[in-house]
């Protein structure tokens, strides 16, 4: 669906859109949603720091496993990932970063989970892929890389070179 070049262009655009709204990021923190949002968050951070010379960016990673609403409802035990947030979000502008927005349930869980770290003044959502017509909850992204219409049993797979060997997005 997207090649490495297209992913790169989109990342630059998203970074610029973030700068437009947050200027020097003095009161803004980025939070990658574990596990897959962490890769995107690191990329955005890298771009902002190296290409746009934003210093002192605060980046954290939030695991939402224990806040999910499907505990004991699936076959498998939900496996946790590492949460690493070394700052308080009290009165900060928080930008959640995730790779794919689908039902909105992960973001719903993330909204609850982030409250453990304080009361943010504002929360925004950045996603690389926004799957339309599949939301279970009234949650929409503030920054979106690409909007796609995928039918229910299709799966959007985002690959990152540091994990999967290439930057690409597939519909499988």
């Amino acid at each position, binding site marked *: 669906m997207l090649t490495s070049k297209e992913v790169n262009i989109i990342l630059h655009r998203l970074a610029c859109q973030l700068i437009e709204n947050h200027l020097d990021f003095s009161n803004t923190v980025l939070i990658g949603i574990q596990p897959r949002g962490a890769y995107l968050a690191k990329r955005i951070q890298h771009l902002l720091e190296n290409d746009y010379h934003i210093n002192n960016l605060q980046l954290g990673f939030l*695991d939402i*496993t*224990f*806040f*999910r609403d499907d*505990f*004991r*409802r699936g076959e*498998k*035990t*939900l*496996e*946790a*990932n*590492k*949460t690493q947030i070394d700052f*308080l979000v009290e009165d900060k502008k928080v930008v959640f970063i995730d790779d794919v927005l689908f039902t909105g349930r992960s973001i719903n869980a993330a909204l*609850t*989970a982030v*409250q*453990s*770290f*304080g009361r943010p003044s504002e929360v925004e959502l950045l996603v690389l892929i926004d799957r339309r017509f599949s939301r279970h909850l009234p949650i929409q992204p503030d920054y979106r890389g690409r909007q796609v219409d995928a039918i229910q049993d299709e799966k959007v797979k985002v690959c990152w070179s540091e994990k999967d060997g290439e930057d690409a997005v597939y519909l499988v």
Partner: protein
Amino acid sequence: MSELTVNHLLGIKYLQKQDIDLIFETADHFKEVINRPIKKVPSLRDITIANIFFENSTRTKLSFELAQKRLSADVISFSAAQSSVKKGETLIDTVNNILSMKVDMVVMRHSHPGAAYFLSQNVKASIINAGDGAHEHPTQGLLDSYSIRERLGEVGGKKVVIVGDILHSRVALSNIYALQMQGAEVKVCGPKTLIPKYIESLGVTVEPNLRKALEWCDVANMLRVQNERMDVNYFPSTREYAQQYGVDKALLDSLNKEIVIMHPGPINRGVEITSDVADSQQSVILDQVENGVAVRMAVIYLLASKLQQ
């Protein structure tokens, strides 16, 4: 591997190495959770847990209750002293009555070895053994290993000596199983009267001399002398016990390496260890207590996720 191989935690004996690894990895996440400004997650909001303690407990009961509350479970606690057990009700009846109030999980401490196993065979709930007589105390065994892993990086290959009242100790047995499963070497040390006769059949060696034991080990787990379980005198006097098997700062400093000192609590200060040892940098006693909550959260979370919806 994301699921326990068991539906109850009755003893370390019934676990496999991969279960312990999974519990520790999950506990790492919960340890991070309990150090947040808000120390609570909503995972178990639809689970009810009964803590049934037929024997006294402060630390274990508090630790379990806190772990359950941090996971948002509903908790009912009861001590046998104020219960119908005193009126002659059987164990199965007592627990079944509690379960008919829609309880999903039972944490039980009982003075009879095998009580938790017996219960797991006879009632429909997930059972966690919080100590059954002188048999096992699995969550303590787990949190002790977890604390060693945290302090020394790993448990495998480490040398651990368990000192003191091995005979009456459920902590000793759970520790031996847990440590050996993870590849640690275990010695026990204590007066001959407090070492069970066939302990070598578990694959541990006995070292009657405390200094030799400490010189050998990386970690010393100092058990409490359980006066309340002693029907006869197992040693001439507490003073003599402290002289032979108590660790003081002078002894610790005279060793050629820094060993880790553990104690499952409650400490008889001046008997098993002196105050300056208990409060020293080498002691991980308070870390054990903190880790206890994280490890118990992990056990409860993993068992709860196997409960039928």
